[in-house]
């Protein structure tokens, strides 16, 4: 028996569960939507979600019911729901499992969200590489459509809710909600300036909600079992429910673990994920995807909830926990992530476009033992001029690996630079816009 009651992974943990419509219904699926459709008003559904304390699982942790509440009440035209299945934050691989193993749980969540916000059309924006996931979703939608659960007059009501799968094509930035909308409109995935927010000007300039896969998958359970039940799980009042944490790196059993928010990193890493893979000790971990600042063994007793991780100087983000053992070169690790951000910068904002290129070049020359001490000031200075100066949160994210490793492991940078000096290798390479 698992130590904690799984909610989102419950069905798929049953041996042999395939995620078909019949099996999902046998496990109690599509009861929540039946219970509310035409019987509970959309406003009351939103109220339940608000009361449950559910916060977005995509990264920012915004309260879901509150987000829905921002949609204009009196607007008569179409509204849209977009499910964010872009899952591209390095270290994160939970949505893939939720989609491929229990697609109807997500579809029911989407029906509930559409009903609550009054959307008749919704799109699942799934990252292009998830070819299998897209196929599984298409099949599940076809099954649900044939059963009368998706499409016109669902469950014999007068409500119409359609769901379409839309594949991305390989761009991390399309996980950012306004870039996602641009991409869905057939354009380059460049984030929009906000305000206006998607709640009023979203897809095709219509009121729109963007929610993450895991956020939506929670909805059937909340409507079935009640807001109080959900709010009693985790660390209420601010971090309610479970999270599917994705553990990767140097642990014995990497993988997805669903636990109530509020357990410690120590428990997640040493009990759930089986501890370190060898007798090398833990040196560092990233608590919430590549965008979250690195933490140290001193932070192992921090609780996995939004507030505690923020207090420790990082963020719970996407729930991707990456563990690194003694011997891992932290400058190298920061460079790897910086290369990711450089590759994925969409190019819209100058600080991010130019800055990511400069950061990669400086980091490379430090790792190649061509650095000098002044580089550390330049890195810090550049980072400070990127964060907070871009249209979307990518700018804040991309500086986290460097700033946090400089904070905790500055001596490793300095050692590399001293090695360069000792070998008399310093031949500063000019830093320019292009590599």
């Amino acid at each position, binding site marked *: 028996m698992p130590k904690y009651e799984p909610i989102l992974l419950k069905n*798929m*943990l*049953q*041996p*042999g569960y*395939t*995620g078909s419509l019949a099996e999902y219904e046998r496990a109690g699926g599509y009861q929540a939507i039946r219970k509310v459709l035409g019987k509970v008003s959309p406003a009351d559904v939103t109220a339940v979600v608000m009361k449950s304390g559910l916060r977005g699982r995509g990264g920012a942790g915004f309260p879901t019911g509150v987000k829905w509440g921002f949609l204009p009440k009196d607007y008569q035209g*179409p509204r849209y729901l977009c499910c964010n299945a872009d*899952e*591209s*934050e*390095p*270290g*994160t*691989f939970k*949505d*893939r*499992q939720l989609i*491929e*193993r229990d697609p109807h749980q997500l579809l029911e969540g989407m029906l509930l969200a559409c009903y609550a916000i009054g959307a008749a*059309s919704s799109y699942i924006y799934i990252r*292009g*590489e*998830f*070819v*299998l996931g897209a196929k*599984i979703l298409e099949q599940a939608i076809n099954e649900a459509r044939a059963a009368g659960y998706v499409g016109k007059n669902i469950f014999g009501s007068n409500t119409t809710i359609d769901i*379409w799968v*839309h*594949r*991305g*094509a*390989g*761009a991390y930035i399309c996980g950012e909600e306004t870039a996602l909308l641009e*991409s869905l*409109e*057939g*354009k*380059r*995935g460049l984030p929009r300036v906000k305000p206006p927010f998607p709640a009023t000007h979203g897809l*095709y300039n219509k009121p729109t909600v963007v929610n993450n896969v895991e956020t939506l998958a929670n909805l059937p359970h909340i409507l079935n079992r009640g807001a109080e039940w959900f709010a009693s799980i985790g660390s209420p009042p601010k971090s309610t429910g479970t999270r599917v944490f*994705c553990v*990767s*790196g*140097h642990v014995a*059993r*990497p993988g*997805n673990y669903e636990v109530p928010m509020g357990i410690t990193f120590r428990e997640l890493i040493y009990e759930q994920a089986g501890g370190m893979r060898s007798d090398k000790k833990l040196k560092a971990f990233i608590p919430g995807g*590549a965008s979250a600042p690195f933490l140290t063994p001193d932070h192992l007793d921090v609780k996995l909830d939004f507030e505690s991780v923020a207090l420790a100087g990082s963020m719970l983000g996407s729930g*991707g926990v*990456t563990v*690194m053992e003694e011997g*891992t070169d932290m400058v190298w*690790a920061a460079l*790897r*992530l910086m290369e*990711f951000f450089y*590759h*994925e910068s*969409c190019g819209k904002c100058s600080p991010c476009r130019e800055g990511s290129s400069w950061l990669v070049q400086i980091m490379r020359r430090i790792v190649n033992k061509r650095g000098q001490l002044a580089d550390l000031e330049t890195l810090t200075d550049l980072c400070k001029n990127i964060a907070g100066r871009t249209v979307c949160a990518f700018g804040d994210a991309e500086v986290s690996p460097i700033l946090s490793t400089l904070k905790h492991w500055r001596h490793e940078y300095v050692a590399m630079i001293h090695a360069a000096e000792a070998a008399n290798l310093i031949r500063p390479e000019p830093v320019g816009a292009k590599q």
Partner: protein
Amino acid sequence: MLKETHKAEIDDILSRYPVKRSALLPLLYLAQREQGYITEAAMQEIAGLLKLTPPQVYETATFYTMLNLKPVGKFHLQVCKSLMCALVGSDTVIGWISAKLGIKPGETTPDRLFTLSIVECLAACGTGPMMQVNDDYYERLTEEKLDRILADLRQTGTCSLKTGPFMWPEPAPAKPGA
């Protein structure tokens, strides 16, 4: 012309969106599926179908890394090198492939069978090192597995080591009598 050969599919795609331009990525995918990459002629045709200018199509097509504007090999090996995979040996995997196929990242074998690319995180970080080959994921790679994958691809065009519906850790098998 796609319009003649795939009319039903194109109509189905168009019916999903209230604004035509939204069909752009799906149609580019369709073109790529048919020809292996997206030709300029296909982009012009798609522009016509969606009432866009060719530069509007080109502007979108060039943004996305999965859209190939140049031909690639029959099997496109894409190895993830982001941090989580790198921690568990992705650079070694890239070295193996390079040595076995005699190509560097970005290159295609002379028989046009394999192209090797290095890519960023594919959401399989707990099961690295990993690669995607065309539509399929191959995870927890070892040198033995890699040899088998390359051999099977050559011989049969696919390999049974590809990942099915993903779950990790795998659910425990049902215990007899439990």
